């Protein structure tokens, strides 16, 4: 079955090495993540890949295993894209039910917070190989490029939304839609009240009055 044990071990070795290297560059993040790994945390990937990875704390390192834990403190199950979104800092994956959580929910939140807090100092790692000045130069350019691409992405989103809602009128505007939904809710409530009132009036008038002591 693909991937075989050798390839799985290669994958876990690469992930483990990269994760621990990143944690070395962020001591505070490492402390937070190790604090969240009080027990094994198991990730179960569903379709299209059926794989299981387990994170285990081993002294000041995080070990990655391709085998399920015997007693996982926390088990997260979802599609690979949902885990990619979680790794990218998307907090909505749990609320939207894209990732199922089994086990200690508080630990899941602690783990999520620890992941969000991770901020490895890549510039320091680069500086050990290239020197401070070139590393800072490259770091600035990369930070600038990342900031620009984020900004460009959000502007593009806003422009598309505005075009679809306001200019082409393909879809109703957000506020317009919210007002309509509110009206529908109100109407539904009023209908319910009216129905309740009608059923009260339809009750037989010759019904015996309640017994009094």
């Amino acid at each position: 079955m693909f991937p075989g044990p050798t390839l799985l071990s290669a994958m876990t070795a690469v992930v483990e090495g990269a994760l621990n290297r990143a944690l070395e560059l962020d001591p505070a993040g490492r402390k937070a993540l190790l604090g969240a790994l009080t027990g094994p945390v198991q990730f179960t990937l569903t379709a299209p890949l059926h794989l299981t990875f387990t994170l285990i704390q081993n002294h000041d390192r995080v070990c990655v295993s391709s085998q399920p834990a015997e007693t996982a403190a926390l088990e997260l199950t979802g599609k690979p894209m949902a885990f990619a979104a979680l790794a990218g800092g998307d907090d909505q994956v749990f609320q939207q039910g894209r990732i199922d959580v089994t086990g200690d929910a508080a630990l899941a939140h602690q783990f999520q917070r620890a992941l969000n807090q991770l901020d490895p100092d890549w510039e320091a790692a680069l500086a050990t190989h290239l020197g401070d000045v070139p590393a800072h130069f490259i770091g600035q350019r990369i930070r600038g490029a990342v900031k620009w691409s984020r900004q460009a992405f959000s502007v593009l989103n806003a422009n598309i939304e505005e075009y679809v809602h306001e200019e082409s009128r393909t879809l109703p505007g957000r506020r317009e839609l919210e007002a309509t939904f509110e009206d529908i809710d109100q109407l539904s409530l009023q209908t319910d009240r009216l129905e309740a009132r009608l059923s009260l009036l339809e009750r037989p008038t010759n019904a015996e009055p309640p017994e009094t002591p």
Partner: protein
Amino acid sequence: MSEQQTPANDKQAGTPQDDVTHFGFRNVPKTQKAGQVAEVFHSVAGKYDLMNDLMSMGVHRLWKRFTIELSGVRPGHQVLDIAGGTGDLTMKFSDLVGTSGKVVLADINASMLQVGRGRLMDRGYAGNIDYVQADAEHLPFPDNSFNAVSIAFGLRNVTDKDQALRDMTRTLKPGGKLMVLEFSKPTNPLLNKAYDMYSFNALPLMGQLFAGDSESYKYLAESIRMHPDQDTLKGMMEQAGLVNCKYYNMTGGIVALHVGIKP
């Protein structure tokens, strides 16, 4: 298969059939096999790690890593690493069992044990590792002592494999896991041919170039061919009293990890 790869039938003159075993493709008296294997490992001990990396192109680390992942060893566990050699598995087990657990590195060969001990000490592994020179067929440990027993690339060198499997099972605690990592039979015929060519031509050449000893690596290739295949070894483990026995083929079956549980 070339003539070189065909097991010889040169029975020792005057030696009964039951008293001989194979040493590579040759048959030798059972009493002599351990000594001859010991000579091989005395010869290669110094360059063992380098040769492992060269011959497997580093993939032996992944095979061992998978074994560790599957072991389920946790802090506080007692682990026996038989034929532990230069201590690759022992090192990982030592990390996993922590200070509350114990790992025993056992090897029949004093040279290998010495190299392993030196290597582990140099890397700061101490306190939870014991070193024992022991024969896998007669393990000097009480019954039900270990949570996990591993033997990596060692079983094919053992004279009486059934006896060794029985003794390993004896030392396991009920519920304990035996893991046998060993060369096996490639499942793809094309890979098998390429593997044969590599084993019988490249390995002895590498042995000569890097370790100054081609005979030991010729023995390695031959002993792999004489080792039981995946299903036979699984049957032997069941005969030894283990249950839930299964195997995992790695790198197309060049290596297989057999796992069994003591009931």
